[in-house]
């Protein structure tokens, strides 16, 4: 029911367009620092842990670059970063909309004759679907770069070996799989969080509960849909 109202034809596109731009900044651009920091460090950790685990001299060292690329593109950036975004963006959306509900701001929208669900939720969903793939692309790049910097500086492999590794056996289809996951996760995070925020009733305590529920349900659904999409795309 809520989603039907969310995707009802916008009352005024110019207002919605401005909201989408605002949400791209609010949801996406403001998440860039945390995504960047986590990606660089995780890329480095993946590479160093791989180097530590590879004790067989028969395995070539370019495997480090290969492992870092595969881990980051297939799982770390699309899934783990989206789980982190579920915490940051999801709680932000649920608490923002929840606070608007308990302070009668949503009622005020309704009284004005505005489709409050559409006005508040639609721009967030569209903004997340647009900006999340860019965030994840940046995360992939920085993760692989972090692996390079840490791996080479720690002496785990040479620069040539790492670069050769990240270019080896590359299948572009995997990017298609990853970005499909990201779009689905973007929808899950924004719609679930908006749902819990929109249906908040009571006071500040309930806003906190809605925020927690939004993060928990979004995270569980991300893992569930991650599994389903992996089965669809990679299970030949």
């Amino acid at each position, binding site marked *: 029911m809520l989603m039907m109202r969310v995707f009802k034809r916008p009352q005024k596109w110019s207002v919605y367009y401005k909201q989408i731009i605002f949400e791209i900044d609010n949801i996406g651009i403001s998440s860039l620092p945390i995504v960047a920091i986590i990606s660089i460090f995780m890329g480095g950790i993946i590479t160093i842990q791989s180097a530590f685990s590879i004790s067989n001299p028969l395995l070539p060292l370019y495997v480090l670059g290969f492992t870092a690329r595969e881990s980051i593109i297939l799982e770390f950036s699309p899934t783990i970063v989206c789980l982190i975004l579920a915490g940051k963006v999801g709680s932000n959306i649920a608490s923002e909309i929840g606070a608007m509900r308990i*302070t009668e701001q949503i*009622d*005020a929208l309704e009284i*004005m*004759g505005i489709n409050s669900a559409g006005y508040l939720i639609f721009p967030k969903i569209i903004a997340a679907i647009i900006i999340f793939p860019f965030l994840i692309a940046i995360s992939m790049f920085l993760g692989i770069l972090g692996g390079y910097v840490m791996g080479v500086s720690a002496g785990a492999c040479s620069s040539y070996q790492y670069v050769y590794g990240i270019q080896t056996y590359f299948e572009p289809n995997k990017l298609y799989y990853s970005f499909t996951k990201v779009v689905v996760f973007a929808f899950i995070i924004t719609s679930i969080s908006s749902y819990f925020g929109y249906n908040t009733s009571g006071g500040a305590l309930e806003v906190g509960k809605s925020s927690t529920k939004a993060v928990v349900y979004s995270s569980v659904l991300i893992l569930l849909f991650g599994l389903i999409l992996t089965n669809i795309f990679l299970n030949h």
Partner: protein
Amino acid sequence: MIEIKNINKTFGDRQIVKDVSFKFFPSQTNLVIGESGCGKTTILKLMVGLHQLDSGSVLFDGLDFPKLNQDDQQDVRKKIGMLFQGGALFDSQTLEENVRFPLDMFTDLSIKEKLDRVNFCLQRVQLEGKNGLYPAELSGGMKKRAALARAIANNPRYLFCDEPNSGLDPKTAIVIDELIKDITHEYNITTIIVSHDMNSVIEIGDNILFIHKGENWWTGNKSEILHTTNKELFNFVFAGEFMKSVFKVQNK
């Protein structure tokens, strides 16, 4: 004009509104008064569709609002301005953006025309020059006045006010009351005010509905209310020391 006919509302096993009927006239300040918890805010929310009626009808100039489809209800709502108890200003928007919001959504005015209208409304509520402030930077009285500016921005035909001067000092409360009264008379608006403030009743009560335990208990105007013989209304009106002294003066 707005007319409510035999409206009823039950929450769980508690009937909050019992068969209430009343007519709210344009160019008058229509007050719904009563003790806390008597059902007056519920009546207001039933009228604007924030709660669903169990039975009865709410007629906006003859249109039965609850029976209209969603799109037609939205058309009626575009003619409604509402002042919420807490102001309900949008936190993320400045005062100017808050007041401009209904104009952005429902009009095709140019940017300059919108700004002129915003400045006019802010000047009308004595908040001129405060365009750039956020709700968090406003005092309680300023928030109420800002919310009133937003409510009148799009020239509403109906104005609903839920406890417009609760939590305000007496002087600011009178300013809000006077503003609502002036706007109502100037623009021929049908104004409905929910209040339990006797000062408001005496100041601006053109047409009064007294609710007691969810029922229409008494109707009249500000002159009649001071001479009431209705026991419950008498106890409500003359509960405070100030009103008791008014009563003594009257009966000397």
